[in-house]
């Protein structure tokens, strides 16, 4: 029988939003790292007031004439009047998007996909482990948790990047770290002598995180290898597999489970994910060539 799937937090508007991009204007573009930029988008017409989305969902962004790519929404879900997307320039479409100037028009379809369980995790300790660009899809969940801070037990954020220059949202990390009610650990894989912070992989830093494993919900987002080892570390600390959430990635072209590209075994990453509880995908997670 077909798998039961949770309805996503927000769905695209009927008919039109499914296949046709909505027009958005680039309001600002900000460089995060050498090849990564954050775009802030505002609706181009007056018929769209806001774009409600759940933390963890993504949009399909169109660079007209060049291509369309899936990009996680990185803004605050409490602020749906603007769409914030952090994009790494790796191909023709993303390079074009990263070169956008304020005023340029971009097409948006979405929001698609499942969300981080920020509401279900209330009352529990929250551990967020992100690596590299993986901080972008989980940032909306961080915003939510910090805004609803008292709903959670302890909140720990562990972030790893390749080098200090690859750290995403550097100043925001500093601000979060400055709060008295959340613990933020940042580490890099390699660094020159000027770097005053930790050097070592995220899994090593996890030994420093403090949480009650049996009452913890963990959100994990980053390169596949990083998620794989982080999940193992969480499991060995006693966090249960249905309380560890991962965000998976595949070639996604339609966002609707119709084009067939994003399949991982029986699930479609675009509509059954990209956020999954680990126990749902553990038989397929990082299975070679699947």
């Amino acid at each position, binding site marked *: 029988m077909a798998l039961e799937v949770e309805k996503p937090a927000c769905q695209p508007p009927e008919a039109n939003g499914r296949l046709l991009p909505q027009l958005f204007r680039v309001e600002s573009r900000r460089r995060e790292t050498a090849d990564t930029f954050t775009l802030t988008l505002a609706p181009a017409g007056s018929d769209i007031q806001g774009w409600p989305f759940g933390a963890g969902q993504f949009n399909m962004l169109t660079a007209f*004439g060049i291509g369309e790519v899936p990009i996680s929404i990185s803004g605050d879900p409490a602020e749906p009047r603007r769409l914030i997307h952090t994009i790494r320039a790796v191909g023709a479409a993303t390079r074009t998007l990263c070169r956008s100037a304020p005023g340029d028009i971009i097409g948006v379809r979405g929001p698609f996909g499942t969300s981080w369980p920020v509401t279900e995790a209330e009352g529990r300790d929250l551990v967020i482990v992100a690596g590299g660009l993986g901080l972008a899809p989980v940032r909306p969940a961080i915003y939510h948790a910090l805004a609803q801070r008292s709903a959670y037990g302890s909140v720990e954020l562990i972030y790893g990047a390749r080098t200090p220059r690859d750290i995403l949202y550097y100043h925001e990390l500093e601000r979060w770290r400055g709060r008295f009610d959340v613990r933020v650990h940042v580490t890099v894989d390699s660094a020159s002598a000027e770097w005053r912070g930790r050097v070592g992989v995220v899994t090593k830093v996890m030994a420093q995180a403090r949480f009650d494993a049996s009452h913890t919900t963990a959100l994990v987002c980053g390169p596949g290898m990083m998620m794989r080892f982080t999940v193992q570390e969480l499991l060995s600390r006693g966090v249960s597999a249905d309380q560890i959430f991962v965000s998976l990635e595949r070639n996604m072209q339609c966002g609707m489970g119709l084009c067939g590209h994003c399949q991982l075994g029986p699930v479609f990453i675009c509509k059954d994910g990209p956020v999954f509880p680990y126990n749902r995908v553990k038989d397929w997670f990082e299975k070679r060539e699947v």
Partner: protein
Amino acid sequence: MNQTFLIESSHLQQLLEALQRRGYAVLGPTLAQGDLVWGELHSSAELPVGWGTREEPGFFHLVKEKSQGYFGCRPGQHSLKQFLFSPDTLLWRARREGGNWRLEVPAASEAPYAFLGVRACDLAALEVHDRVFSRGRYLDPLYQERRNRAFIVAVNCTSSGGACFCASLGTGPRATSGFDLALTEVLEEGRHFFLGEVGTKQGAEILGGVTHRQATATEIAAAERLVAGAARNQTRVLATGGLKEFLYDNFENPHWDRVAERCLTCGNCAMSCPTCFCHDYLDSLDVTGQVAERRRHWEVCFSVEHSYIHGGAIRPSPRSRYRQWLTHKLAAWQDQFGCLGCVGCGRCITWCPVGIDLTQEVRSLMAAASPAAPESAGEKEHGDH
């Protein structure tokens, strides 16, 4: 029990005309440049009268038959997906207007389609595509629009081909549902008629414009005998019991390496399969840079690009791509859509240049998984379709 009727073969043309009067574009099998294709029929004479087909792994022949049947040809490469989910579709166009883009959507397709000569396997494939495109969380509006307006005249097979295995899956050779009208062609003892069945109200309305009468018990029996014979003649079998769990457990089965030695990853099987639905989206810009288009076109999971994400393909090896196609169609599909992805039409076997037979590959995988267990070849099992 559907209402039955009889149409003399000479009156088949009236059926076409009744459909044309209603505004349908009648599509059916026809010969074009020596090939069997589906195209628009302007008269019943354009059907491949007097022709038949022979299918074997890797071979498809058109042969001249002794009798002058209209529907002696079993399915070629084409299926309904050629029209309801066309190989190349324009999704939208955008024109640059100063600093802005203005989107244009192509108008809905013109005439509705009336499909004349749909085999039971292809009807089963239509039901599968209905699940994929119109019963999931997201619908495909293009498929919906064409599908809802389509009229279906099914044709029950009176002989089976060398690649057919619909009987083992319960998807044929007799069409049991999903049609407006169904016909069985009977050519024997100097008689040539169609034993028909009404499936829907629309079917009955169209039938009203065609000369027809009640069928006698003998005539009904003649038709049923032919269809039953077609079922009996099938030699190929796909055992579906426990197939999903077996394939999920056998991703490292040694037999994948052996089939990978033969598979060219050409994707012919996926292209001709009536249930395969993978497609690509392609954005382009005209030479002036003022007009952008997005088109949708068929893709196959056999291509390396299919699984490409930044950094590389998830499935670089032919072994992993053949495995993906087979396990998706026979296992994951069941979890995704609640049915098997295969309808037993045999096209993948016929149109594979090296004649790979997925029913045999399943048996080989099972044999390779437990060398001690006997092969399940020859056992007929009706699958959970």
